[in-house]
């Protein structure tokens, strides 16, 4: 392995408390080390450039059955945005749903090296792994969807927490999953039986369990198993005006379970769950209430799910929401019932600046990012591709860093949308330090990845060097420079290999697939497995042997041991 030394760059590394200081970084065998033999090491000159750890995106739909179905549904998304083969770079197409290789390249060119796929129906997880295997460069993992799973709902109804934990543990090991994902808990199942609007305390038909009980139960299970990431929740009532109350209820329902070890629940794409008002014409921002709650309580972290104007595709396991969106837009759509587990849907959408509702959604995302004081608990995402493709991140960064940039855009939006949101009154601007926290350090920390998101000795040598001088630039005025700098790195390094240089792909190493090697005590495991097998025969159309994803299936497996096993 080549040794490298990165000299003279302005390093931003929040975990090690380095803020725009000139620090040299030494790299050996894909890891960052204290020092290397300078005569052997290759020098990378980063004079007057910004050096950050490689980006970590914890919520981006990049792989799986729904992503592929989206590609099939939208040929028009592909014919204009294409890339031809060039050197190591394979050809590819797609704007909001790029093909697998293109996804990896585009993330690497922006300086991201770790991206997690947040929604994988257990029965289709083998497909998710197929695509994750194909995505070059990026380290990734997938979160199995458990919020509407029949096994889970039955265990929790009977209050069998130990058995439920054993089942979840078996799933993580069998499917090579990473964390518990909950999408619209209970409500998707209720909708499949014909239910419509579903509140946080409405029982699910035939299971007689409420979303509140499912979320609380899974958070307890998550604690018992010691999984590295908190329960990843997509809250109920997504997309409905007035839903910020449900969001607050969800956040507050687990407050008594909080420990000292940071957040126990990650609430995702909160922008879609922060609407006040009673219907779409009266929709307004509920971000202030949610930001206030998050500021006062430490047991929760959120990501924003920002809306970007333009054409994109929504895809979620929240089948009922996609049905409503289809009723609204009347375009083409896909809806799918995943047996015994969840639902899903895909609807193309174009977010329009002159549309009042879309303008409010845009402002709410930024409201959340700017009104929550602790950058360690609010992360920057577009919920790719639901709010917009991830390639729009540089634009989003410029709005966060420059009031001028967002004011200029907001002046061209409907007047009411400015009045009914808080953004016009917010003066806060992100610094490079804040940005490094929300896009790298904090996301790596909340995912439990100790080797990511920082540049201390022992960390993976995932490094992004940007063509921007943080000491000289006035971020509030030069927002266009920010956009340009963050869209193409000078150099992106992945585990000590240079993968991208000024927008060209120069290396395509295989990324890791993380999964949690979770275990419960043997006697508990042995008592649960026969029951799982019996129920599986009843509930599923496939054999249990076809459900497994063997470790050999992963291109580069990276098992993680849970922190502590405390199942009784």
């Amino acid at each position, binding site marked *: 392995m080549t040794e490298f030394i990165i000299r003279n760059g302005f390093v931003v590394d929040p975990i090690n408390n380095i803020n725009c200081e000139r620090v040299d970084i030494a790299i050996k065998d894909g890891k960052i080390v204290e020092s290397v033999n300078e005569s052997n090491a290759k020098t990378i000159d980063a004079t007057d450039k910004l050096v950050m750890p490689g980006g970590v995106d914890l919520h981006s739909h990049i792989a799986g059955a729904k992503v592929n179905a989206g590609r099939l*549904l*939208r*040929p*028009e*998304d592909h*014919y204009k945005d294409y890339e031809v083969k060039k050197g190591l770079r394979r050809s590819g197409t797609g704007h909001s749903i790029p093909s697998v290789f293109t996804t990896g390249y585009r993330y690497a060119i922006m300086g991201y090296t770790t991206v997690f796929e947040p929604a994988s129906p257990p029965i289709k997880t083998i497909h998710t792994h197929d695509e994750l295997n194909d995505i070059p460069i990026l380290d990734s993992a997938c979160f199995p969807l458990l919020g509407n799973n029949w096994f889970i709902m039955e265990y929790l109804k009977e209050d069998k927490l130990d058995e439920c934990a054993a089942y979840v543990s078996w799933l993580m090991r069998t499917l090579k999953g990473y964390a518990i994902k909950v999408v619209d808990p209970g409500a998707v199942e209720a909708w499949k039986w014909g239910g419509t609007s579903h509140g946080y305390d409405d029982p699910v038909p035939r299971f007689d369990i409420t979303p509140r009980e499912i979320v609380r139960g899974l958070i307890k299970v998550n604690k018992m198993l010691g999984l590295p990431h908190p329960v990843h929740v997509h809250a109920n009532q997504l997309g409905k005006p007035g839903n910020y109350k449900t969001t607050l209820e969800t956040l507050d329902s687990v407050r008594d379970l909080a420990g000292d070890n940071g957040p126990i629940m990650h609430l995702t794409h909160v922008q879609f769950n922060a609407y006040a008002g009673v219907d779409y014409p009266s929709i307004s921002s509920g971000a202030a209430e949610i930001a206030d709650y998050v500021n006062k309580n430490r047991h929760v972290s959120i990501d924003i799910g920002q809306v970007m104007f333009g054409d994109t595709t929504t895809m979620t396991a929240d089948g009922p929401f996609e049905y409503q969106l289809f009723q609204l837009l009347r*375009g*083409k759509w896909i809806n799918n019932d995943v047996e015994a587990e969840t639902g899903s849907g895909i609807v193309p959408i174009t977010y329009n600046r002159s549309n009042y509702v879309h303008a409010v959604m845009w402002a709410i995302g930024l409201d959340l990012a700017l009104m929550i004081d602790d950058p360690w608990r609010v992360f920057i995402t577009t919920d790719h591709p639901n709010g917009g493709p991830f390639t729009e991140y540089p634009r989003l960064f410029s709005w966060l860093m420059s009031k001028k940039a967002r004011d200029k855009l907001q002046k061209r939006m409907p007047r009411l949308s400015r009045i009914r949101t808080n953004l016009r009154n917010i003066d806060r601007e992100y610094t490079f330090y804040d940005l490094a926290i929300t896009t790298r350090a904090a996301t790596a920390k909340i995912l439990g990845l100790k080797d990511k998101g920082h540049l201390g000795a022992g960390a993976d040598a995932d490094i992004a060097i940007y063509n921007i001088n943080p000491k000289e630039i006035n971020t509030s005025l030069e927002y266009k420079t920010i956009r340009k700098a963050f869209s193409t790195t000078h150099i992106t390094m992945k585990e000590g290999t240079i993968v991208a240089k000024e927008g060209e792909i120069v290396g395509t190493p295989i990324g890791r697939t993380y999964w949690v090697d979770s275990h419960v005590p043997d006697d508990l495991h042995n008592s649960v497995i026969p029951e799982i097998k019996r129920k599986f025969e009843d509930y599923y159309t496939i054999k249990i042997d076809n459900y497994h994803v063997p470790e050999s299936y992963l291109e580069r497996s990276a098992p993680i041991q849970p922190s502590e096993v405390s199942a009784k």
Partner: protein
Amino acid sequence: MALKKFKLIANSNAPIDGDIFSPNNLAGKNIPEILNLETWLGKKRVKVSEIFEVTDESNESEELTLVFDGNITQVTRVGKNMSEGKIIVKGSVGAFLGIEMSGGSIDVDGDADTFVGMSMKGGTIQIKGNAGDAIGSGYWGSRTGMLGGLIIVQGNAGDEIGRWMKAGTIRICGNTGILAGSRLQGGSILIQGNSEGKLGASMVGGKVVLLGKTSSTFPSFYISEIKSKAKVDGEKISGPFYSFLGDIVENGAGKLFISVENNPDLKYREDFIP
């Protein structure tokens, strides 16, 4: 200005990406500059000099005119995005002719392939021969069809003419395939020959006028009256026509004019005229 003459000399039948061949793109360029431009021949990147002979002839017209001598069926996307000038093809041309064009004109002496005038916004395309499927429609899956302009086909045309079309006019002098005017939002389609049926499936606006015979009509259109004349682009066309409204499965208000004279098997529907 000038007239540039192109003669195909490529020694391969692989498709050629022709989106550089538009008057907008070539305006102000001299012959060596044009010969130096790059495009795709199959999967190979080639210079124009390897596939075309280009000569310069001046004429009195103020606009730049591109003339393609002979058949260029392997060249696709000719005239993409053009907004001015003229393209003349003395032969047949490949698919995606004049896509997203907003002005100027294209004349083809021979046949054209599929997707003529896809998502075009203005200008005129005239085809002396036959044309393929999806004239004046949007790309597969797209909800943006033709937005303006005029397409005239002297011969026959294929299926799905004017899918998702919103404005503009398509005139077909010959026969057409199935699903003409499907998902039509606005604008008008005039078919002087016969249709293979399924006219105006899921249309919500606009107008389809058929002078010949159709082999089927959808039950989701209701007949409102018999009209003696239909209007296309201000021009009155004498009928009489059965005037249908629909498509009611989409709550549509599109209009379908079908010739009474050539469709005797639709006579039973006269009983349903309110």
